């Protein structure tokens, strides 16, 4: 976290941002709980509510919090303590974060350091320190285009399911936003889903992840001549997923899916026949060639590849606080920005979500990998003083990777 002098500058910039603009607010904002994390603090101020966008904006100008959140839930009394709030319903929220997607580039831009013994490493933080077994780490995570692309790809898969299978309208019911860091949020607001309880939301999560899918309930039965396809949903997706998976799979992939070397080689031998069978929609024939247990493993691997990488906890939490679109992310200085579904394909957060432009700033950078902001590449820097355009300098200051020079 940035120190006193830096915080002052960042706050000043955040204030300018909130002072000039209108603020976007969620539907029925008066029924929502709001929460804020100030710069330099760890705890959140919560149980607040605002009845007009202007009230909220004035609060932001006055307090310039680092992070702004609102509740996915609607409450009778948003300011009351949890048990007395009076839950009226909640939007459905999906969180897709590059942290939970395997990308090879993390080894280039992410680092961790064990607080116990000081061991350092690159890439994803391990569960426990390989040297001392400690479990707490200092982490350094950077935004990168490849990670963001991977997250966007997952968001798109999710949107396909939400629109095609669940029938949500991309215009009235779905909202996508860049989180301001390494991912996307998808908000679904519709009277249909508002009052769904936790078990129901869990079923939705399971549907999206393909958890608990049973091939035999989607037509993979020995007795069935020909599968009825064209009904959409997982039935068609499963066939396609299996086809795509098998087509690309090699020995290593099949063994990672849990098959023995012998079975995996056999699958590779009959691959073309299996693909033909899937193409023809006659999965019963597949069961004459391979055992049910083998099929189940292939299905599991294929589904995992096809499903969208959402965070299960966020979606099933009925009281979740989520970042408010249109506000600034205190760790990057980028705008958590709403993106319309149609332009998501061409959306470049590292250009579009830049909030601070104009002017230069001299900073001393401790360490930064190569990064891109506003369409320009910077770095890598290590222990050096550089003069940077405002957006790049603020990004480093927010990340705590630089301090003001002099």
């Amino acid at each position, binding site marked *: 976290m940035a120190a006193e002098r830096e915080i002052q500058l960042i706050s000043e910039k955040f204030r300018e941002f909130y002072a000039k603009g209108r603020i976007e607010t969620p539907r029925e904002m008066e029924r929502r709980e709001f929460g804020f994390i100030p710069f330099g603090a760890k705890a959140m101020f919560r149980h607040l509510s605002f009845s007009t966008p202007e009230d909220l904006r004035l609060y932001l100008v006055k307090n310039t919090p680092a992070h702004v959140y609102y509740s996915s839930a609607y409450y009778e009394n948003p300011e009351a303590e949890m048990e007395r709030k009076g839950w009226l319903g909640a939007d459905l929220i999906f969180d897709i974060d590059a942290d939970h997607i395997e990308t090879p580039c993390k080894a280039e831009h992410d680092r961790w350091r064990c607080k116990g013994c000081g061991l350092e490493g690159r890439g994803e933080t391990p569960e426990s320190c390989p040297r001392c077994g400690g479990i707490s780490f200092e982490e350094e995570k950077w935004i990168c285009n490849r990670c963001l692309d991977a997250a966007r790809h997952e968001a798109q898969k999710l949107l396909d399911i939400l629109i095609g299978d669940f029938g949500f309208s991309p215009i009235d019911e779905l909202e996508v936003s860049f989180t301001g860091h390494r991912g996307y949020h998808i908000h679904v607001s519709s009277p249909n889903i508002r009052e769904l309880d936790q078990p129901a939301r869990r079923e939705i999560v399971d549907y999206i992840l*393909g958890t608990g899918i049973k091939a035999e309930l989607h037509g993979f039965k020995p007795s069935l001549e020909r599968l009825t396809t064209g009904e959409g949903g997982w039935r068609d997706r499963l066939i396609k997923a299996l086809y795509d998976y098998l087509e690309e799979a090699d020995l290593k992939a099949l063994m990672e899916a849990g098959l023995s070397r012998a079975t995996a080689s056999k699958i590779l031998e009959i691959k073309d026949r299996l693909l033909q069978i899937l193409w023809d929609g006659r999965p019963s024939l597949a069961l004459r060639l391979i055992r049910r247990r083998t099929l189940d493993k292939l299905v599991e691997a294929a589904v995992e590849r096809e499903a969208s990488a959402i965070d299960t906890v966020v979606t099933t939490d009925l009281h979740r606080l989520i970042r408010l679109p249109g506000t600034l992310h205190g760790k990057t200085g980028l705008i958590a920005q709403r993106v319309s579904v149609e332009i998501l394909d061409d959306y470049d957060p590292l250009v579009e979500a830049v909030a601070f432009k104009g002017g230069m700033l001299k900073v001393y950078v401790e360490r930064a990998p190569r990064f891109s902001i506003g369409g320009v590449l910077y770095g890598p820097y290590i222990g050096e003083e550089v003069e940077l355009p405002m957006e790049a300098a603020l990004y480093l200051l927010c990340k705590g990777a630089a301090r003001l020079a002099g």
Partner: protein
Amino acid sequence: MIGVLEAKYPFLDRAVEMVGVLGLRVEELVGFGDVVDRGFERVSEAILRGVVSYRGENPEVEMLSFPVALMFVSLIGDPFLDRRYALAEGKRAYRLLREEAEEVIAEVAESFNWNIRLRRAILDGQLYSFELHFADYLRNASGFHEDKWKLVNRVMRNGYVLLTKAEAARLLECEVENLILQRVSRHRRIELPGELEKRVEMLKKLLEEHRGQIGGETLPERVDVEAFPPCIRRIFEAVLAGRKASHMERFALVSFLLNAGMSIEETAELFTSISDFDPEMTRYQVEHIAGLRGSRTKYKPPNCDTLRTHGICQNPDNLCRRVRNPITYYIIKARRGRRRRGKTS
């Protein structure tokens, strides 16, 4: 005036309205012996057999006896009976609905505000008759545990789930059950004529005689680590080894241990043995889950399907197939262990 439909489905708005129009008051009921008898019978059938029958001979009596039965149940004021009666009326509705024409099922469904449409489709040789909006589907089916009810195993497009007739009837059974449960659990106290009061007393006695038949399972006296299910065992061992556990994993473990009879002290200690946990914080969290703080509800361990959703269910074994909650696994496994040990010693 009173048709077959009102007799079969007395919970429908139109049936309820008719009863209202007839405007019977409690004192007058005594004069309608058949109705009182049948109302009494409905409740005793629920207690004895778990399902209420249908008597079509006299539609009027069949319809009017329903509110009378509701009155009996809510006067007795026993949550166990509330559930049992609601379940039994639900089953009755299911059995009748299963045999109905599509249009009738749709009509009953619409009375529950379902977003349902007739749609014939044959898939893999199975005939489907309806499509139902997934929200209505989930409201009722998310409590079922068979694979075929999981949304991921259904055929869904544009927000609608295909359903067979029998499946629609089964989901409606849930609605009926919930509706009745809501009505009877508003326990009231009213003065009854002696004749009716006698019936209430008889039903109470009947209930007492049969309550014992549904007994609970019991926990082993000492916490038996050998009997932990795979999911809990894995987290337990990870925590002992000082590895990082996610929030959900910690919650599953702590709620499991507390429900398995471990004390708050012991549970908190388990975590504080690891250098990185703040003892005060840990104790606070454990107490919260134990129901000593905050909402004051003692948390049960999450069900298996929740744990599955969050990726905590790993390597389930054969016994796992029979349970829905890790605690149930534990009870069964521990009992088996006791038996086995009993034999050898």
